[in-house]
């Protein structure tokens, strides 16, 4: 039943953009039909997934014979799949509602229909791959998703920058798929068929190949540092609701792949967990450090995806260590935290991208240092952004805190009762997580302050208006979901326990419930007390200062004429932190500081390019290209030379063969 609902949802979503192709491009009918179809798809798919989460712990599936060589069309919806399915359908639908006002057909005659067609295809492909249990079906979903995402990123392909980031994305996703081909081939050699089912022997030499190839292939999609190179540009240049879906949902398919592949091996070696944990900490810290250095609001949010993927990897690494050492509580806390963070990040990151989209729509710029003071003209968008910012910083009483708490408690437990290296690694990871949290607070105070507080830094910002209600409502829904998980984590805890049991079936009888292991009930108490205290205090202060005179300027130590240009900008806010992480960020700084008794005008500009892409891969690629220029003489364009090559090859092959 569940699986049929999901399959139906996938089919309807895939076709949602098709009717619009046959309707005149000036009319809004096409976009309405697409949204209605997507709503039906979401209703079917999400209810199937939700039912699977609540009612059927072991999942259910279906299989058809398939004319493709390599097995059957196998769909299976278990708890892991259902968690991702629910998120894919809900976030995609909210993004589509937002798109109705953000990317109106009447304003985007040339690409609106293309966007909606591939939006539906993308949603369907993601849902297909997370419910596929056959490697070929999985790869089909994976490839359709990758190509649909490429076509969505390059929606505005008239712009050179968009084409460039699209190209980088395409190269990255091709390399990832190549790794996955190799990985599935190794898996086939291990299993003898194309089904994605365990248990498998983790100490077989091919298992190592499966894990490493999977880590690179899926890590490229998820954006684990240093495999994140495609992510910032692609997220920044796609339309905002596409960025929301990509960052909130699409990159999580990489995490799904990692979770699914690691679930097949009951006793993984220690180093698997250690490696995922290590890359997680590195991604988390460096991701947020790069985010702090950005001036483009969407690039900044994209780097935060790298950070959050890092946090998810910390949880997954901990779960792998727990599975290797037979420590069920670490599995529950690590995997539960990781999967809840997948959900949470899907909620607050989509929320932030949508709010950023509203800002861009209202002001026409992505440059943080041209914005400012938007909370007054855009109160709802500002509040939504604040909720997202608080949540992504992992602060109570919102959802980001809950998933980070689960991972923290897991790391603490590994610290207090753990052998040898495990507890030291766990302690340092916990410190890393604390650093990530504090850096995220710094970064989001910077963004929220520079964009929504103070006064407008440019004319277009000063004329900003509140977003259309079709853009505000999806943000409101996402913000409410963030608050719900934050205030009532007990409601989602059973799902996480079940997911842990699905991931590590050999431990399923030993796994205690996350409620027992982590103080979720107390967190609710504290969060409610906090909300109540803040509400009462706020009301008291509001009453107390009712009579405050209006219309006075900022005191600012008595300076009489402050101007918008004198505000602390996001670059100046970040300057010290960028300096602290200068060894990794390599900021490029231009400008002359003012000096002398009567200083001449000075200026300061800093820019943080992506170290891996702009300082490693691009120069590396150029150098390789130059090196190959030396071989250009081989390619002469004369048939005689080629005949000689063929002859030489033949002779060499004969000699080689004869020698054996």
């Amino acid at each position, binding site marked *: 039943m569940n699986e049929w609902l999901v399959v139906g949802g996938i089919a309807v979503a895939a076709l949602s953009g098709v009717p619009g192709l046959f309707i005149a491009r000036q009319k809004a009918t096409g976009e309405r039909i697409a949204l209605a179809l997507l709503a039906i798809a979401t209703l079917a798919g999400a209810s199937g997934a939700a039912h699977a989460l609540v009612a059927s712990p072991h999942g259910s599936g279906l299989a058809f014979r398939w004319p493709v060589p390599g097995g059957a069309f196998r769909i299976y919806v278990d708890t892991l799949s259902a968690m991702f399915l629910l998120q894919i359908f809900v976030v995609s639908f909210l993004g589509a509602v937002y798109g109705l006002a953000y990317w109106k057909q009447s304003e985007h005659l040339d690409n609106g229909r293309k966007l909606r067609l591939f939006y539906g295809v993308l949603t369907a492909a993601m849902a297909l791959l997370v419910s596929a249990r056959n490697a070929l079906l999985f790869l089909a979903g994976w490839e359709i998703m990758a190509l649909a995402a490429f076509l969505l990123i390059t929606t505005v392909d008239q712009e050179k920058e968009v084409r460039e980031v699209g190209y980088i994305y395409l190269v990255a996703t091709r390399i990832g798929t190549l790794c996955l081909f190799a990985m599935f081939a190794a898996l086939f050699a291990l299993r003898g068929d194309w089904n994605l089912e365990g248990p498998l022997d983790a100490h077989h030499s091919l298992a190592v190949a499966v894990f490493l190839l999977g880590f690179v292939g899926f890590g490229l999609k998820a954006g684990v540092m240093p495999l994140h190179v495609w992510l910032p540009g692609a997220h920044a240049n796609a339309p905002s609701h596409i960025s929301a879906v990509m960052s909130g949902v699409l990159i999580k398919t990489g995490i799904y792949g990692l979770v699914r592949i690691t679930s097949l091996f009951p006793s993984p070696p220690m180093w698997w967990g250690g490696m995922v944990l290590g890359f997680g900490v590195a991604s988390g810290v460096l991701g947020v450090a790069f985010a702090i250095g950005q001036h483009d609001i969407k690039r900044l949010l994209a780097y935060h995806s790298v950070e959050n993927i890092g946090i998810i990897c910390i949880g997954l690494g901990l779960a792998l260590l727990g599975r290797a050492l037979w420590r069920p509580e670490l599995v529950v806390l690590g995997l539960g935290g990781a999967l809840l963070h997948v959900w949470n990040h899907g909620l607050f990151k989509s929320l932030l991208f949508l709010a950023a989209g509203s800002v861009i729509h209202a002001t026409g710029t992505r440059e943080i240092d041209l914005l400012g*003071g938007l*909370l*007054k003209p855009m109160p709802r968008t500002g509040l939504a952004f604040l909720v997202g910012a*608080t949540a992504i910083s*992992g*602060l*109570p009483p919102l959802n980001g805190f809950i998933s980070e*708490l689960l991972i*923290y*408690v897991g790391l*603490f437990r590994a*610290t*207090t009762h753990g052998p040898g290296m495990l*507890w*030291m690694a766990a*302690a*340092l990871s916990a*410190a*890393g997580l*604390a*650093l990530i*949290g*504090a*850096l995220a*607070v*710094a970064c989001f*105070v*910077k963004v929220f*302050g520079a964009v929504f*507080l*103070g*006064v407008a830094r440019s004319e277009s910002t000063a004329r900003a208006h509140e977003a259309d209600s079709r853009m505000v409502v999806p943000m409101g829904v996402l913000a409410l979901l963030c608050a719900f998980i934050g205030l009532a984590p007990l409601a989602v805890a059973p799902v996480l326990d079940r997911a842990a049991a699905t991931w590590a079936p050999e431990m399923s009888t030993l796994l205690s419930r996350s409620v027992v*292991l*982590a*103080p979720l009930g*107390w967190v609710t108490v*504290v969060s409610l007390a*906090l909300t109540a*205290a803040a509400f009462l*205090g*706020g009301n008291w*202060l509001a009453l*107390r*200062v009712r009579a*405050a*005179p*209006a219309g*006075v*300027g*900022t*005191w*600012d*130590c008595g300076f009489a004429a*402050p101007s*918008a240009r*004198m505000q*602390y900008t996001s670059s100046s*806010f970040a300057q*010290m932190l960028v300096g*602290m992480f200068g060894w990794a960020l390599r900021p490029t700084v231009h400008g002359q500081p003012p000096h002398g008794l009567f200083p001449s005008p000075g200026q300061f500009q800093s820019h943080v390019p992506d170290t891996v892409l702009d300082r490693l891969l691009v120069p590396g690629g150029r150098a390789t290209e130059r090196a190959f220029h030396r071989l250009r003489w081989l390619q002469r364009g004369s048939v005689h030379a080629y005949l000689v090559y063929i002859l030489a090859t033949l002779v060499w092959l004969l000699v080689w063969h004869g020698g054996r």
Partner: protein
Amino acid sequence: MPGKLSDVLAHAVLVITLPPLMLGVINKTKAAFAGRVGPPLLQPYYDIIKLLQKGSVFSRTTTWVFRAGPVVGVATALLAAVLVPIGGRPGFVAFDGDFLVVAYLFGLGRFFTMAAALDTGSAFEGMGAAREATFACLAEPAFVLGLLALARASGSLSLSTMLGSGMPFVWTRAGASFVLVAVALFIVLLAENSRIPVDDPNTHLELTMIHEVMVLDHGGPALGLILYGASVKLFVFAAVLARLALPVGIGPTWAAWGIAGLSVLAIALLIGVVESTMARLRLTHIPSLLVAACLLSVFGLVLLVR
């Protein structure tokens, strides 16, 4: 688990009354070093009460976020204060990982204080917020690492057990490590509460670097809340540090509460001595101090390898 009613009452009384007194003790100590009489011990109370009764002025640049800053600051500090144990008596509630909740409550308070500072649109306050954000990034890992060392030594994840009645016994096993952690936590305390050598709370206006500069534009009741919230935050850190540094056994209930209160005031005295005998560090040197705190905590952890 919730404690006895008398304990809860005593805890609440200490949390509400002691924090401003700590500021009084610090100021009195500094005055004694400078050969002055100094303001009365209870002066911070008078200040707070006076401020709460005053009127307010708000810049036209500001929004509701500016008013939310002080409120969230006080609410988070008070909640944190009821979660920490005082003098070995458990907090209102105790659960695994409660120290993390305390740390993140302060994180939330910091978020809103900094946002309120940026809401004024003043370069000064932005500067203060940027510094607060930067130094917190180093203080937070030091705090978590220090508490992890305590957790490892005591085998518990709850502050109330870590710093509970078993403390004297754990000291005999992990004393060396606890000394390092105590120093680290003291540095964190000075940084988080903007005391010398990290920041100087007495130099208002231009010379101030971090906390005071963020709250320049707040006045009246809002400033009163900020003052009180900051003192409660200081109290929380001091309560943890006092128990760690003075792990005396517990006598009768009243004696235990008395010792708890006095040891917290002893920490205030220590802060006063530090403030009187040290100069403020240059801004660029503060990260080194905080990294040192992190390293002390890590060494504290390493000493627990068995």
